[in-house]
């Protein structure tokens, strides 16, 4: 009989052999040889890590306990491979074009590179995978136990097997999973090793099956008879459970981190999927071929109470076929180890990339980015993560006591990782899916999974107290973990899958629809959903320094020449290169993209870099996203422009005000100078003649004459001061109007009397009594002042031989119009604009007056609400006064 010692030796030899194969494969891959490494067959076989120890041993147990239901575990993936071939290809294409490193990376990348999402997916993946790793350790331990003699001592040594297995797997995984920190995260050695293990486990199961059918039962017919007789044929098949299980295994096939690792990350060539689409279902069919016969024969031959999970091992042992038993053991060992290795690699990538590294980078304040030890830290993080993940599985195994409860863990874990499905698939087909939708879906799905399936799986009273099962959380009956919303009476697994997946999908859709994708999400969504439209047939990484040069030119345009140069040189030094151009590695590109997006926005930076490195041609969606950003930038700059326009306007207004002030100042200077002149001129005469008078010795007529001059000039001064004060009052608006009523004729009469009365004159005034008979209600004194001025002007300036002033009045609809027209030569055209200005005496000196008269008239008419203007082309000087009718 094979002892555990022999078994351990076989294990070690087997592992060393795998080690050698993996090492050789890695070497061949590095040297560019070994095309066989990249064959579709290897890819297909690597997919077989779907079949873990749980399927190797457990399928038989499953069949022995629940009949044909075990088929669903193989049916789901087969349906996915055949029916969803197109979706798988899309996932693989996206994974390659986006350089996806894990399922967490995939989901976070799709939703705007959200690290929060990546962290969530990573944590959930670890929670979902840890029991599964424990399950593998348990199966190895149990299979060891099957060989060891019963007894407490043997049992203890078998228990300690688990820790050795765990340690060995950790070492193996670290050696081949983290030998290099490849950009594409591919592990040729590991893949070839698990492909080999896939062959071993298939051969082992087929060998056991053939032995059981032909060796133990003596032929196919006898076996079929036995099956018909066994309870397997009688098991009732529940439709809902079948549907749920098929759906679950299909979802898990797509969402399990380890499946994603081999299917997407390790994929060498999209075309391999074409082969895998038929070859993998065939593999599954072969591996499940003898499950029912072994179960049926096991139920018959094995003593009641023996573990049906170990029929595969115990049937050969029972028949004394130690060699076959060891092969069977190796098959199970292969299943367990390949699963743990790939799961550990996948999870460690996620944990180190999305949790450890961001924390470390933040803790070191980004200083490490500038030094060269990022790579070392990343490797260390990866290695520690592998150890952590495997040890977590070991701890779970030890704490759970290694009981048979673990058998149910497989489906529970499936249901857990299946929660990724809505976010993953939704992100591939629906551009409107948003980060918040994905977070909401994942959160709801996982919460329900934990509450309805994971915690109850430990049994009532272990974690969830019994009363929660009976009366619901907080005593709310609709919150019973296995009868949510009063949907009691269902199979607990179906119940949990229905509610968690249903509400997960609903939350994902509703939150996505209600929200709005950010530009990065929009861009990534377009890249994912339309991956076939704008990704070239993916080749391996072909970046070169030429691309770096283009990138540098682009970066210089955005960041400025000196800064870009410095950044590139620093990046090159970090990569250990001399010179100023770094290799366009994904890390560098990602880093550059981040830097540039600070200046031009994430979508733009991404599109520009993609364009240069040929990762993807820029699609319409990219451009739209870019346009969105550009529009935002333009809006911002137009706001700036508006502001600067406003400033220009303000400046112009200031300039205008300043000009006006300057003008006013000039006018004031001019006015003062005029006033000075008007005052000094009469004062000169007065002073000169008063001195002459004082000197004495004048003839009486001279005395008389000079005294008269002094008197006249004094009057002139007085008049000037009166006018100035009058004008000042009028201009400042402080004038008090004294409204009276009367006819126009009365005002004109007063004006004529005041002008003509005192001094004899030759001026004749022609009046129009008919037109003047209009009642006015205005300040009559002020109006008379205007008329007096106009009549006085005519008297002073009309140069006709028989000076005549015609006063015509006309009552219009809105106003009363009074024209004063004389028969002189009038005012020269060039002076017409000036006559209402102060001191504009037009060079005429023979009449007294300071030249303020018309300026005063204009102010008065303005105050009375009317106008006074010069009427050109009337022969002589002509003025028109208008008054609003309301006032009349």
């Amino acid at each position, binding site marked *: 009989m094979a002892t555990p010692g022999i078994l351990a030796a076989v294990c070690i030899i087997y592992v060393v052999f795998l080690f050698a194969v993996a090492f050789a494969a890695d070497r061949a891959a590095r040297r560019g040889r070994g095309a066989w490494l990249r064959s579709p067959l290897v890819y297909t076989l690597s997919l077989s890590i779907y079949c873990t120890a749980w399927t190797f041993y457990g399928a038989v147990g499953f069949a022995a306990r629940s009949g044909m239901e075990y088929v669903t575990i193989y049916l789901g993936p087969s349906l996915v491979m055949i029916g969803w071939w197109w979706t798988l290809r899309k996932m693989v294409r996206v994974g390659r074009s986006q350089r996806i490193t894990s399922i967490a990376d995939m989901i976070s990348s799709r939703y705007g590179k959200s690290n929060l999402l990546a962290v969530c997916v990573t944590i959930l993946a670890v929670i979902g995978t840890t029991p599964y790793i424990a399950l593998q350790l348990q199966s190895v331990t149990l299979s060891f136990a099957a060989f060891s003699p019963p007894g407490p001592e043997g049992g203890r040594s078998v228990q300690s097997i688990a820790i050795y297995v765990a340690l060995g797997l950790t070492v193996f995984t670290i050696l081949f999973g983290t030998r290099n920190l490849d950009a594409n995260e591919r592990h040729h050695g590991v893949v070839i090793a698990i492909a080999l293990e896939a062959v071993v486990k298939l051969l082992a199961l087929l060998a056991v099956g053939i032995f059981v059918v032909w060796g133990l039962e003596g032929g196919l017919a006898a076996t079929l008879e036995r099956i018909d007789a066994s309870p397997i044929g009688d098991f009732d098949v529940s439709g809902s459970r079948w549907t749920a299980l098929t759906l679950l295994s299909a979802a898990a096939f797509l969402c399990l981190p380890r499946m994603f690792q081999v299917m997407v990350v390790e994929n060498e060539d999209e075309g391999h999927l074409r082969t895998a689409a038929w070859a993998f279902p065939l593999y599954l069919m072969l591996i499940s071929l003898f499950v029912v016969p072994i179960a049926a024969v096991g139920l018959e031959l094995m003593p009641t109470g023996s573990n049906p999970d170990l029929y595969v091992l115990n049937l050969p042992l029972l028949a004394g076929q130690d060699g076959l038993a060891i092969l069977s053991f190796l098959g199970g060992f292969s299943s367990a180890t390949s699963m743990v290795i790939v799961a550990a690699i996948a999870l460690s990538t996620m944990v180190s990339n999305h949790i450890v590294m961001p924390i470390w980078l933040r803790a070191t304040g980004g200083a490490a980015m500038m030094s060269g030890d990022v790579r070392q830290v990343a490797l260390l993080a990866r290695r520690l993560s592998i150890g952590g993940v495997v040890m977590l599985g070991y701890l779970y195994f030890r704490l759970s006591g290694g009981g048979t409860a673990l058998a149910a863990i497989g489906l529970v874990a499936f249901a857990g990782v299946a929660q990724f499905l809505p976010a993953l698939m939704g992100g591939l087909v629906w551009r409107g899916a948003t980060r918040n939708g994905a977070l909401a879906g994942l959160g709801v799905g996982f919460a329900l999974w934990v509450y309805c399936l994971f915690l109850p799986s430990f049994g009532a009273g272990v974690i969830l107290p019994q009363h929660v099962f009976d009366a619901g959380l907080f005593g709310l009956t609709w919150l019973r973990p296995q009868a949510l919303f009063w949907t009691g009476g269902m199979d607990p697994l179906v119940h949990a899958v229905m509610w968690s997946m249903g509400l997960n999908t609903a939350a994902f859709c509703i939150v996505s629809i209600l929200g709005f994708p950010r530009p990065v999400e929009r861009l990534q969504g377009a890249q994912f959903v339309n991956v076939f439209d704008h990704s070239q047939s993916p080749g391996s990484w072909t970046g070169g320094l030429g691309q770096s040069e283009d990138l540098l030119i682009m970066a210089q345009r955005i960041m400025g020449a000196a800064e870009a140069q410095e950044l590139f040189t620093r990046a090159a030094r970090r990569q250990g290169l001399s010179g100023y151009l770094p290799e366009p590695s994904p890390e560098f590109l990602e880093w550059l993209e981040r830097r540039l997006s600070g200046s031009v926005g994430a979508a733009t930076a991404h599109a520009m870099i993609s364009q240069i490195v040929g990762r993807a041609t820029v699609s319409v969606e990219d451009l739209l996203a870019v346009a969105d950003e550009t529009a935002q930038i333009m809006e911002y700059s137009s706001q700036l422009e508006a502001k600067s326009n406003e400033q220009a306007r303000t400046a112009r207004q200031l300039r205008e005000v300043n000009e006006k002030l300057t003008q006013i100042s000039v006018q004031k200077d001019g006015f003062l100078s005029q006033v*000075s002149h008007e005052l*000094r001129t009469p004062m000169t005469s007065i002073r*000169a*003649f008063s*001195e002459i008078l004082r000197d004495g010795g004048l003839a009486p007529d001279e005395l008389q004459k000079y005294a008269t001059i002094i008197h006249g000039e004094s009057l002139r001064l007085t008049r000037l001061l009166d006018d100035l004060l009058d004008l000042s009052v009028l201009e400042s608006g402080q004038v008090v109007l004294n409204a009276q009523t009367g006819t126009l004729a009365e005002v004109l009469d007063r004006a004529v009397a005041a002008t003509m009365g005192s001094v004899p004159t030759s001026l004749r005034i022609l009046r129009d009594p008919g037109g003047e008979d209009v009642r006015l209600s205005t300040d009559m004194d002020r109006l008379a002042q205007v008329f007096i001025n106009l009549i006085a002007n005519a008297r002073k300036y009309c140069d006709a031989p028989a000076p005549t002033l015609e006063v015509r009045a006309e009552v219009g609809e809105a106003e009363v119009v009074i024209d004063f027209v004389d028969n002189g030569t009038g005012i020269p055209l060039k002076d017409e604009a000036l006559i209402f200005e102060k001191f504009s005496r037009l060079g005429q000196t023979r009449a007294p007056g300071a030249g303020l008269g018309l300026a005063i008239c204009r102010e008065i008419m303005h105050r009375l609400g009317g106008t006074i203007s010069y009427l050109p082309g009337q022969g002589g000087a002509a003025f028109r006064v208008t008054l609003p009718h309301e006032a009349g």
Partner: protein
Amino acid sequence: MAGQVLIIEDEPNIIEAISFILSRDGWHVRTHSGGEGAMAAVRERRADLIILDVMLPHRSGFELLADIRSDADLGQTPVLMLTARGQRKDREMAERAGASRFMTKPFSNAEILEAVRALAGAA
């Protein structure tokens, strides 16, 4: 022999006052009112001194002074400029235009007499 003084001014009362003062002091006084035809009056008979008002209708005193100064024959004639505006700017312009002296109205009779004696006596 008594000097010839030409007064160019637009205020009749001021012409009369200056004429009286200068005549009493023994000067031969000619007068011209306003800017128009003033140059002809200047050329008509050589004067020992021209008294010129700045604010003349039609033609400013500065323009007239420039004409006098640019005349080959009469260019050296002393010119006493009078202004009623009393601004420093006028004084500067007068000096630039070549005025021999500049007086602001109103002035005392003694002042103008002294100025005339000084300017016409030097000529």
